[in-house]
């Protein structure tokens, strides 16, 4: 059987579409999906490192609110020494230390605190990665939740999250769960809100609508260092907000962490120490979820490419396979 030029061309096209359709990923793509945008009623947290005293009330409060075992009895809860997130700690306070730490919020010979918990990304990698929609972002309030019922335990979310948040329980055979902050949305029905913000004595962790929190963050950045200012504690949208005492305006880094990171997050942070020194990752503005999904949908959008490739391949194998297979194995 000789190959005509046309059928050879078809062959190249058929296999080319199948094998190298991936190449289109590199070209400018028609249906590139951009970053997702903040949901209309997005709620979140504002964490101001300069107001945090490192009391870790939020660490213990978070455990109690989420039914997690305490690492010390309640009488000595202030001794809680959870250093890193784990399946039973959805929120920890970590510490930046440099040289002889003699002053707070100073990069050299200083120290600072930062809160490590889910950022509730606007365009979360974990949600994009999860193959079974166990992780979902609420379309209204933007809280990123996990479903015990759906999860298959593949831990793709653990690999995908740039903020190292989801924690899988390796010690369990029959109910290994993924653990991450869900913004205490289970407390909303009782009229309560994020325990970490509720217990925070200084207002360092503040709960509320992201837009209000963002405004407040910008306001603090606009203040003159050394001057006095007051803010609120608990929730920013309370009917009667609880005012704090007067604080001195610190030397804020002029950046709201979470404003652009990874396409934005619903937890915003302020600090006087470089965010990356605190241990927060550099994450580009274009969300990786959007890049991944653009590549994937360029290749597989409505299965058009695969369908065309399959048709091309079948047109070829229809002839080649019959010739070959009929010839073989007639005798045993």
């Amino acid at each position, binding site marked *: *059987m000789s190959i005509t030029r046309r059928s050879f061309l078809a062959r190249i096209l058929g*296999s080319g579409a*199948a*094998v*190298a*359709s*991936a190449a289109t*990923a*590199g070209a400018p793509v028609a249906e590139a999906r951009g970053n997702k945008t903040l949901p209309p009623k997005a709620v979140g947290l504002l964490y101001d490192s300069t107001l945090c005293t490192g009391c870790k009330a939020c660490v213990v409060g978070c455990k109690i609110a989420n039914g997690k075992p305490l690492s010390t009895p309640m009488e000595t809860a202030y001794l809680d020494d959870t250093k*890193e997130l784990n399946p039973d700690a959805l929120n920890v306070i970590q510490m930046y230390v440099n040289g002889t730490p003699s002053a707070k919020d100073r990069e050299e010979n200083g120290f600072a605190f930062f809160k490590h918990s889910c950022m509730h990304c606007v365009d979360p*990698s974990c949600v*994009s*990665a*999860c*193959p*079974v*929609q166990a992780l979902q972002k609420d379309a209204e309030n933007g809280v990123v939740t996990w479903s015990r019922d759906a*999860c*298959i*335990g*593949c*831990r*793709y979310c653990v*690999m*995908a999250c*740039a903020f*190292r948040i989801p924690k*899988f*329980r*390796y*010690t369990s*055979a029959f109910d*290994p769960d993924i653990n991450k902050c869900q913004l205490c949305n289970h407390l909303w029905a009782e009229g309560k809100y994020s325990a970490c913000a509720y217990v925070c004595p200084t207002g360092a962790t503040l709960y509320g609508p992201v837009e209000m929190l963002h405004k407040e963050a910008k306001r603090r950045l606009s203040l003159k260092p050394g001057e006095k200012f007051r803010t609120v504690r608990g929730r920013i949208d309370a009917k009667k907000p609880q005012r704090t005492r007067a604080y001195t305006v610190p030397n804020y880094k002029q950046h709201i962490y979470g404003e652009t990171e*990874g396409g934005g997050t619903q937890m915003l942070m302020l600090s006087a120490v470089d965010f990356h020194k605190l241990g927060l*990752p550099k*994450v*580009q503005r274009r969300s990786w*979820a959007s*890049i*991944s*999904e653009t590549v*994937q949908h360029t*290749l*597989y959008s409505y299965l058009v490419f*695969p369908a065309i490739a*399959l048709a091309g*391949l*079948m047109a*070829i*194998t229809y*002839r*080649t*396979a019959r*010739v*070959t297979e009929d*010839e*073989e*194995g*007639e005798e*045993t």
Partner: protein
Amino acid sequence: MSLAHESYAPLRGRLVTPVTVILALLTLPAAWFLLQRFIYGMGAVSNLNNGQAWGIWIVFDVLIGTAFACGGYALALLVYIFNRHEYHPLMRPAVTASMLGYALGGAAVIVDLGRWWNFWHLLWPGYANVNSVMFEVGVCITIYIFILMLEFAPIALERFGLMKWKKLLNKVMFAVIALGVLLPSMHQSSLGSMLIVMGGQVHPLYQTVLLPLLYVLSALAMGYAIVIFEGTISGEGFRLPRETPLLAKVGRVLAWVVLAWLVIRFADLAWRGVLPLAFQPGRVSTMFWIEIALYAMAVLILFIPTLRKIPCMLFIAAASMLAAASLYRIDSYFVAYNPGDQIHYFPSIPEMSITIGIASFEILAFIILVRLFPVFPAHGKSKAA
């Protein structure tokens, strides 16, 4: 082109040999540790943690395992799409090995799924997330395992003399084969795309939107390399007539695929402007160059006709190609992946035992299948044309 009238026969011979006994023994610890894994959890047997959540069960057993099982895919492309019938005698052993490789890769996934009883969610409309790269991988590999079984079916039907059924199956074989080319092209590329969403945690030398292309091409290359590798070993092990000229021709195809891969790899690095990172000393750049050196060695041997016709050199080229592409997978998921924390991951002994057990089981099953089923061309008749 005249077609050879091919006939195949079981190799027969003893099933209990020192080799098969050793392989069987190697699966025993795996069975024991698997039992523990399912009773006491993954933490009881593995060193997996929340820094490096995917270990050798995913990277070795699934990523590298299925790429090693791409022989059937790579050959089908040559034989059926480019109509190179002369490679057809290599097809059956390749399909057999691919079927086993993929089936065990699938089994390894179950071992690695913490909530394995929910596996079916991947395939269920209400749960499946079409935006997830892993969804594509899961669905595609599941279907492909069945396709490989259908590709193997004629061999089994022939063995049991069910020629009517075989004829019937052959009528739709073209569709099976077409899917057998399409599906690996899809999921082998997706195995690379899975890294994209991990973003900046993956070193820029490895993080690129061309990951799908690089992964599928290197899987294809591994497919050709494994045909040579396994063809040589089977030839020696089962004392079959040497297929060197044919394998050398596969080697030439392989050379072009690897060359294309290298060109794309470096063009991508240059285009993204991260090539200088390859010259900064460090773990990632060191591994990068070891990989490239292995690729280069394979290409060099394969492009020199006199060299690639020497069975031993051809074998070395195939082996170094397999090592290079395996390293590429290991490097992109382990070495280049850095979530920021100090991550400590080195597979535990039980973890390794399970991986070794799965691989041993695969080889053992291959030996048994080729001894009982007509997989290899019957002696003397294979080159009758």
